[in-house]
């Protein structure tokens, strides 16, 4: 009990005095997961929209793959990426192992199916006759997709937040492809694990507090949107 209380006090001090190590870890986490969610969006939203709105052969199979990917364990994602980028792998010459880039790639592998799957489900909810109405208004192919994505913008935003929440709190992938190297590939989750290992509880608690703050913030936003209490400007977008 004493330790926990000690830890929390120290954590507050570390956070508010701008402890360099803590902030270094925080910014790397945001950089890695932020880039990952950005690329996952670029990949996931179009995939979800296209798969949801069109008929094509193997459609059911591809949707099943996306849904399975949604539940991909981070460790599995890490292992898959490792097999490609380690020195004996196909992409070994790129020297990506133990770099933030590798971490981004692994997290893209985790988040993209989540974003694609939720967007896909949202888009399938749209009345199929709406597409005909949009076409009758004179829309070309791209305008149709753009308008229907806007129709599903609230669930799509929720998808992105779900993707972000998932990757910022995972350990399995980033530790495998990143190696948890101090100052280079150490993020909130892996740093917390390391701090606990080394007996440095204050740091560990500080890092966990920050992580919780971020995930809570993201989930809070997600909940607001789900409950459609809006964020006024998003609805008028």
């Amino acid at each position, binding site marked *: 009990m004493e330790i926990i209380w000690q830890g929390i006090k120290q954590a507050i001090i570390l956070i508010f005095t701008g402890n360099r190590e803590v902030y270094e870890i925080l910014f790397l986490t945001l950089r890695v997961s932020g880039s990952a969610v950005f690329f996952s969006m670029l990949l996931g939203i179009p995939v979800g929209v296209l798969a949801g709105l069109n008929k094509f052969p193997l459609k059911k199979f591809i949707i099943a793959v996306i849904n399975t990917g949604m539940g991909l364990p981070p460790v599995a994602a890490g292992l898959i990426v490792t097999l490609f980028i380690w020195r004996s792998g196909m992409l070994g010459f790129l020297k990506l192992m133990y770099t933030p880039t590798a971490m981004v790639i692994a997290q893209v592998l985790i988040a993209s199916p989540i974003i694609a799957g939720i967007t896909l489900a949202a888009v399938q909810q749209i*009345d199929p*006759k*709406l597409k*005909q*109405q*949009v*076409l*009758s*208004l*004179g*829309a*070309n192919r791209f*305008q149709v997709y753009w*308008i229907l994505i*806007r*129709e599903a913008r609230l669930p799509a935003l929720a998808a992105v937040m779900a993707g972000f929440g998932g990757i910022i709190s995972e350990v399995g992938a980033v530790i495998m492809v990143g190696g948890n190297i101090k100052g280079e590939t150490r993020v909130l989750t892996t740093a917390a694990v390391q701090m606990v290992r080394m007996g440095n509880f204050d740091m560990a608690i500080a890092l966990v507090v920050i992580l919780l703050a971020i995930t809570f913030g993201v989930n809070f936003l997600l909940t607001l949107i789900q409950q459609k209490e809006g964020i006024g400007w998003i*609805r*008028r*977008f």
Partner: protein
Amino acid sequence: MDKKILEISDLKKKYNSKFCLDVNNLYAEKGKILTIIGPNGSGKSTLIRLINLLERPDEGKIYFNGHEITNGEVSQTEARKKMAVVFQEPLLFNTSVYTNIIMGLKIRKIKLSGVKDRIDYFTGKLKITDLLNRSTKNLSGGEKQRVSLARALVLDPELLLLDEPLANIDQSFRESLRADLFGVLRGYGKSVVYVTHDRNEAMVLADDIAVMDRGKILQFAGKEEIFRKPAGEFIARFVGVETLVDGVILEREGNVCKVGVTARKSNIEVSVVSQERRGTRVTLAIRPEDVILYSTEISSEESSAMNLFKGKITEIRDIGIFKRIEIDCGFPLSSFVTQNSVNRLKLALGKEITAAVKASSIHMFKR
């Protein structure tokens, strides 16, 4: 210049497991309202979707303003930009009413500043000016359909297509929306194709009417002709002819035929203005509005009608403003009379009555 904004030629499309759409000739004239009426399942909505190129025909051609649009020479998107469609469901986007209304303009890249007057005009006419900033989420069905109509009208399309726009609206809202919509359409001056299963809407709105059933056009003509001279029993019933009797032309004198009608008791002769030949088997169509009732003893001076039928009243039914009277004069004959007439003639069940019908009011078609 070509008067036809739309022309359909030999169009065929299978639209459900049973029926095939088969329209060999149909056209809409510029500046006029063509109403397509028919029961559910007759293929009307499929026809609208084909005209708007939302579906491909199995065979046939569609011409817009003289140019064929079904052969791919003109892009589908370009063709659609000359039209606007309002469907049975409002199909709005989940943003504000105003954004919905201008959505078509934005898609067609029409400058908003240039059409501000048009937007104001139609939102005013459809009575949705107060709703402009509201989200479409909580609007009533009627309000949503008004928005959908405004969205189409502000595009000022060369051809406006309306697929049963009032069908899904609650009775209570339908009257007012119908009044507002028809007010817009009648003064509109542009070409309209209006699809409905409600013959009253057609009666009020149409210049020309096409009657459809099971994928085929049964009759295509001006409003008057359809109502006065329905080309078959189905159409006759659809346009409100209550009395249909079968018979054979016994003889013809000049332009008046004497038709022998098989009645319950004996043969009755009915005089009908027509050029058909003796011996032709026909069906007579008598509109209830054309049946005038008299109390039993009248002389030939009181009525110039060539047909006087005597019979007993078998049913008196209230149908709003009018009362429908059914008389058994050897065959069932229906008449519409006002409450006044009911009182004046002391109409009651079982009463003996004389019904007069002019030979020129009876429509006849071959069986």
